[in-house]
Structure formats: C-alpha cells, structure tokens
C-alpha cells in the first residue's frame, strides 16, 4: 500500500512509455519479490508470527474480549505512532511526543476545572496548545537547521518540567482534579473514550479512530501531492526544495500533526481516567518511535508507510498483553518484550534483504 523513496511505481501503474519490457536492465522482478520489498510486509509477517505464537501459547487470547483488550492497548500506541511515522518519513522525529500527550490532557483538565468552564473549552484550548507545541518544534527545526533530536529533546525536558511545575502551581497538587461531574464531560467521553458492543464484546472506540486515521494517512501518503512532499523532504531536502516542494510548510505541518495526535490521545486519557498525574508520559515517545521503526519507517527518513506502524503498534500490544494472558513469570516481562521486538525487526530486515537481493 505504500511507496519508497525510490519512486517504485505503484501496483497497477502501466510501465512508462518508451521503456521496453524486453530491456534486460529494467526487467521487473517477480511480483512476489516486489511485494516482499514493501516496507510493511516484514512487519506484517512479524505481527502474524507473534499473533499465532500467542494464539498457541495463551489460550485466553483466542477469545474476542482478549482481542478487544489487545487492540485497545495497540490503539493508544498506534494513534500516536501514525503521525510519528509520517514525521519520520519526512526525515525528522519527535522526542517530546510522550509528554506532549500529558501536557494536552493537563491543559484541558486544569483550564476547565479552574475556571469552572464547560470541559469543551478545555478540549479546544488543549488542541490549540498541542498544535502550537508542534508548530514551535517544526519552526525551530526548520529555522535553525539543527537536528530534530536536539530541538525536541529540549522541548521534551521543557514540557516535562512545565507539566509538573504548572500543575503544582495551579492545583497545589501534582495531579489534576476530577472533572467527571462537569458539564460536557459525558459528551466528550462519548467521543474520546466510549466503547460499543460487537457480538457480545466491548470494543473501545479508539480502535476505530486508529484504523480510520491509518486509512486517511495511507490515502494522504499515496494519493495526494502532500504525500509526495513528505517522501521528498525526507529523501533529500535540498533537491525537494529545488523542484518546488514547500519544505518548510511540509516539515512544520508534520510536527503539528504529531501535536494533533498528542491532543487526541491526551483527551482519551483524560476522559477515561478523569484525572491526570503530571509525571506520566515519560518514555512513551520511545514506544511510538519503536512502533514506527518496526513498522518499516527508516530512521533516516524518505521511506516507510502508514500501514506499517499499525502492525508495529499491534505487535507492541500483542506482546505486552500476550505475556500476561499466557500467565508467564512477570519478572521476565521486559526481557520477553525486548526479545520479541528484536526478533520482529530481524524478520523485517531479513524479508526485505531477501526480496531486494539480485
């Protein structure tokens, strides 16, 4: 469903005129290999392997409610992994993404509580704040030309400190107050944190948003001019600029997209748990980035897809919950997770190497 920086023709596109099939140098590789060379195929196979593994090892996984729980865990990672992946395809990445989620939730919660406003006021202001943080990240990266690692490491630390200090200043505690009895809460909860029943199984709405966002991101990447710009600025910024791609706009908007994701997940957390602790979120940025990398997005930019990170996030959720469903010794929890993920990345690498060899 995706393309790489080498502008591989999309499936179904007729060969360019003037290019003869008979010319040995341009001879197309077999379709199976071409399919395997796609960035998301490796992770897809990895995800299937992990899924089948736990299906055998952990009997409760076979039930629908377990799958709903695994998918819920995956979706809270996956919704953020999507914009993070797009940003990485665009050649940058964002270390502040984890704490930005909490910043957004804290903003919405404290604003509505302290001013005794309808919670929707907080939700809207939080969106503006999140987009603003994204804009600032992008603007600084583009204007200074410094690596996004440094810029967003800075904002990561700033946000971490601000989250704590401002919460303490405003609420005199380090957690926000419970807003569940305020106007607009029930409505916002319906939108950001409700669940519905499918065949007797409670399904969380974030799963739907996750898949819809993934579909939109895929469409943007493959079918729009903006999608081409993302690949172009990630592949080679200077040549992209030379052929008229608005590099500044593309990069800043990608950072703002991460801001949007942070807002969305932040609202989900706020309306699920009613209060937010200001110290949360640290370390989540690495999980989002891992999901994107496992999903086939290169750390160097210019390649990747939107569907890959969906499988990447699914693998995280599957492994994390699968260990618990299997009832294994929890002391080994993190080690299991690491082995599984390394294994997935290796499968990914091997599949791609085999497919592109020749």
């Amino acid at each position, binding site marked *: 469903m995706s393309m790489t920086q080498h502008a591989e023709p999309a499936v179904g596109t007729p060969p360019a005129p003037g290019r003869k099939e008979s010319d040995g140098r341009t001879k197309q590789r077999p379709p199976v290999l071409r399919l395997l060379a796609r960035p998301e195929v490796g992770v897809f196979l990895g995800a299937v392997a992990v899924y089948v593994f736990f299906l055998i090892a952990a009997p409760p996984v076979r039930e629908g409610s377990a799958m709903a*729980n695994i998918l819920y865990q995956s979706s809270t990672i996956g919704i953020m992994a999507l914009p993070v992946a797009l940003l990485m395809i665009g050649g940058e990445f964002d270390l502040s993404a984890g704490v930005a989620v909490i910043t957004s939730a804290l903003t919405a919660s404290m604003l509505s509580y302290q001013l*005794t406003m309808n919670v929707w006021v907080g939700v809207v202001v939080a969106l503006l704040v999140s987009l603003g943080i994204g804009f600032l990240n992008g603007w600084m990266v583009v204007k200074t030309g410094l690596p996004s690692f440094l810029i967003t490491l800075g904002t990561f630390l700033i946000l971490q400190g601000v989250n704590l200090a401002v919460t303490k200043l405003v609420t005199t505690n380090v957690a926000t107050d419970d807003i569940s009895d305020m106007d607009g809460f029930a409505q916002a909860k319906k939108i950001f944190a409700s669940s519905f029943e499918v065949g007797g199984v409670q399904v969380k709405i974030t799963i739907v948003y996750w898949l819809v966002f993934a579909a939109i991101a895929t469409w943007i990447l493959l079918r729009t001019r903006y999608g081409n710009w993302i690949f172009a600025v990630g592949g080679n910024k200077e040549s992209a600029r030379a052929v008229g791609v608005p590099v500044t706009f593309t990069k800043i908007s990608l950072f703002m997209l991460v801001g949007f994701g942070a807002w969305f997940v932040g609202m989900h957390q706020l309306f699920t748990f009613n209060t937010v602790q*200001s110290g949360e979120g640290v*370390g989540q940025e690495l999980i989002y980035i891992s999901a994107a990398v496992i999903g086939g997005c290169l750390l160097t930019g210019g390649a990747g897809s939107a569907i890959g990170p969906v499988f990447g996030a699914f693998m995280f959720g599957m492994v994390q919950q699968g260990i618990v469903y299997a009832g294994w010794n929890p002391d080994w929890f*993190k080690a299991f997770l690491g082995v599984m993920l390394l294994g997935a990345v290796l499968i990914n690498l091997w599949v791609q190497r085999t497919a592109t060899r020749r």
Partner: protein
Amino acid sequence: MDSSSPFRSRRIAPAVALAAAVTLTLAGCSSSSGGKKSEESADGASAGKASTPQMTVALVTHQSPGDTFWDIVRKGAEAAAAKDNVKLVYSADPNAGNQANLIQNAIDQKVDGIAVTLAKPDALKDVIAKAKTAKIPVVGLNSGVSEWKNLGLMEFFGQDETVAGEALGNRLNSEGAKKAVCVIQEQGNIGLTQRCAGVKKTFSGTTETLYVNGTDMPSVKSTITAKLSQDKAIDYVVTLGAPFALTAVQSKADAGSKAKIATFDLNKDLTSAIDKGTIEFAVDQQPYLQGYLAVDSLWLYKNNGNYMGGGEQPVLTGPAFVDKTNVDAVASFAAKGTR
C-alpha cells in the same frame, strides 16, 4: 490617508468581533456542576508559629517528579517548617548517586538538620557519615526502616513496608479471599517489592505479582484487564498506589471480573471510591505525618534535645487502614491533598 482607513477598519472590525465572540462563548461555557467553584475553601493545618530562632532543614528524597504521594510528604514537611520557624530546603532525585550529591550539597550549605529517605541505603552511607563528621543531625523517613540504625541516623519515621504488606495479607484472610494479584508499577523498587512480599507472607491464599508500566495509564489498564480475564480465580487485586487502584476499577469492569480491589496509599479520588464501595480499603502510611515529623523532630532536637522513638525504635506512621467505616473522617483531609 483616505485610502488606508477602510483598509484598517476592515482589519480591526473582524478582530474586535472575534474577541467579542470568544468572550461571549467562554462566558456561555461555564460549567454548572463541578469545577473549582464547587470546591470548598480548604484551610491548611496551622498551629501558630514558634518564636525560636530560624533554622535550616534540608529534606532530600528519592521522589520521581509528578508523583502524588511525595507531594503529600512535602506538604507535611512544609507545614512543620512553617510552624517551627524553619527554612525548608527541599530537593529530590530518584537516582541514588544524585541523591547523595544533594545531601553533600546540604552539608556544604551548613544546614542545621537533614532528613533523608533511604531507598538505596548503600549509596548514601558515605555521605551520611560526612554529615555526622560535620555534626549535622540526620533523620530518616519513608524508606529504610531496617537500615537507618546501621547508617547512624538519629531517628526514623515511616512504615515498615513488610509489616504493612503483612497487615494487608491478614486483612485479606479475614475477608475470605482466595487468590490475590499484587500489581507493581515500578520494576526494581525495593519498597514496592517488600509490600507484595509481606502480603504473600501472611496471606493464606495464593499471591501473584503483576508488573505494569506506571507512566502509561492505558497500558496499566489493559494489563490488569488481561490478567483478570486470564485468571478468573483472582478475587482480590492489590495495587501499590492510589491512581492504579482507580484504574483497576475500570479494568475489573472491562474484564467482567468480580474481584475486589484494595490498595496501599490514599488520595482524594480514592477516598470517594472507598465511600462508594468500588474499592474496599486502603493501607495508609500517612506520608504527611512522615514529612511533618521529620522536620519537627529536628526542631525538637535542636531546641530541647529530644529523640522520638528514644533513638532506638523507628516511629511507625502506618499501616493505618482506611475503609468504609472511617473514610468520612479522612475524606476532608484527603480533599486538601494532605492525607
């Protein structure tokens, strides 16, 4: 000039309109329930102020930022400092080496007393010896109940985590529980491990440990859900912090489990959950008291030469059970964030 005026008004008018619209919208968006307006005006504990000359006390903990528990410890310390005319210098770092540096910093400042937490006692041994050489009294609080005397501390205020765990285990027995899961939110934390070990020791049913990622609530929620649906025999979930207990309530609903929930440590949302009956009980180690007594003891030592616990025994601040029978008395203090 004529040509510019329509231009200017065209720019200003929408701005004014927008500002007016925003103001009106915001005014119309007030919440009629909840929010700060409904919060009762809460006064902090105050008991006058000592006329003794000002002294400086350093409180150095292993707090990680943004944790509600430590905030309560600090509030207790601040209340005692205000009462005793003490200048309180608070600093914290979860990394033991950094915590040692902060204690050295306090020694260099020539403070009149130091209160420390002993989460990793070995790392603090040398620097505490230095404080002794500098003739600065040092007291311990919160963690290190078995090490404080070896390190030469004057007094200790806190809960014996193992004792607290054992108390909770006994309580589970009397509630008739058969299988408990003990949820640890931070892997490798000694105090948390001791709590679960204490539960395991006295609880006559079976105890399992479950590790969750405490910085990511959605994952805490789904991991507990997974555990509850994997093992239907679990009839008690024991969490080691108030926010995790509240999350476990949702996990329980998601998993369709009948397990009951108990926890260590309190906060204001937890007291209302106990009141509503969604959480059975909490073991409170009274963090406010730990901070308060640590500072107050240094003041008493300086001004009257007193030792609490006689310098031999720790002063235990827990385990104090909070359940439906006494939650009302605790709730108003928890609402202020001091209990």
